């Protein structure tokens, strides 16, 4: 891809961000959605989070991990314990990261494998 083609690709990607994030906000009149859809959507935020987190914890290269020695499992357990003890997210991150750093398991997630925001 030439530089200019890459610029066009990137500008197009920015438009995709705008369109997808504001999709149902773009029309001036509200798009009618059935009542059950609106009611059910209250489960969407939690579902989206759980869906991003779960594979990051139990999968590696597209397969379920098959060893209990994976450092991520211990980090997740430590983090979970800390969260329900203190209810504090920052501490949850630090506890799990510290644990992952000292555990003698296989390597952690490499950049590029994460879901991003």
């Amino acid at each position, binding site marked *: 891809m030439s530089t200019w*083609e*890459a610029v*066009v*690709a*990137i500008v*197009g990607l920015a438009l995709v961000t705008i369109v*997808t994030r504001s999709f149902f906000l773009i029309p001036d009149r509200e798009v009618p959605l059935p009542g059950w859809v609106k*009611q059910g959507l209250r489960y969407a935020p939690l579902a989206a989070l759980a869906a991003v987190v779960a594979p990051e914890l139990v999968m590696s290269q597209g397969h379920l991990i098959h060893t209990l020695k994976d450092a991520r499992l211990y980090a997740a357990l430590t983090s979970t314990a800390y969260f329900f003890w203190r209810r504090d997210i920052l501490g949850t991150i630090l506890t799990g990261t510290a644990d992952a750093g000292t555990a003698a398991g296989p390597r952690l997630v490499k950049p590029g494998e994460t879901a991003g925001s």
Partner: protein
Amino acid sequence: MTELSEAPAAAVWRHPEFRRGAKEMVGVALGIAAWGLVTGVAMTKSGLGVPLSVLMSLIVFAGSSQLASLPLIASGAPLWVVWATSFCVNLRFVIFSAQWRPYFGGLSRFKRIALGYFTADLNYVIFMRRFPEPRPSPEQVPYFLGGVATNWFAWQVPSMVGIFLADSIPTQWGIGFAGTLALLGLTYSLLSDRASWISAIVAACAAVAAYALPLKLNIVVAIAAAVAVGLVIDHTSQRPALPEEDLT
């Protein structure tokens, strides 16, 4: 895209809800920063070059979409393939946008689109936790802006560090894992009644089971499954589920 700050009332920065929105985002900002750094490194290492990486970070502003499109741009895929891939990876935002309507439907179209553009996943999650009732109120926009401003800096600053220092940041650190742990903590903070526990477990299982789907469509499948299960629980338990004790 910086016009957003002038769009609502000029005093929005001093509104107490702006500070509250910012503060509630700081709790997960470390995780956002970790992902921003990882994404910045990935952009430079894909061969995009520093100027285009900076452009992409600043205007595309969507980590998973950026990571999905990098190999396609590097391999010279047709433009429509790059854009269609990004659209599919972003499908969850389309679902989220339906929920913004009751809160922001009364604003002008420009403001609605501007607010939508700045809404990363965690802004959506944290806003819905703060305002679960879908009706507008004056403190929502300041709260929202406090959250998106924090998120923007927590993402863009580390992303720039990653772009410019890509070669000196060791990739075996597992920095991205800090982001996963931030999401884990946030997930736990949303668990309240029995229905939320069950729908979260269903979503987690569905996301793992459907992981082989391309374009992160496993996340869309997981949301659909969790919404379906949530609706079934709502309908079988007559009234909205009563809050129960945590299972801890």
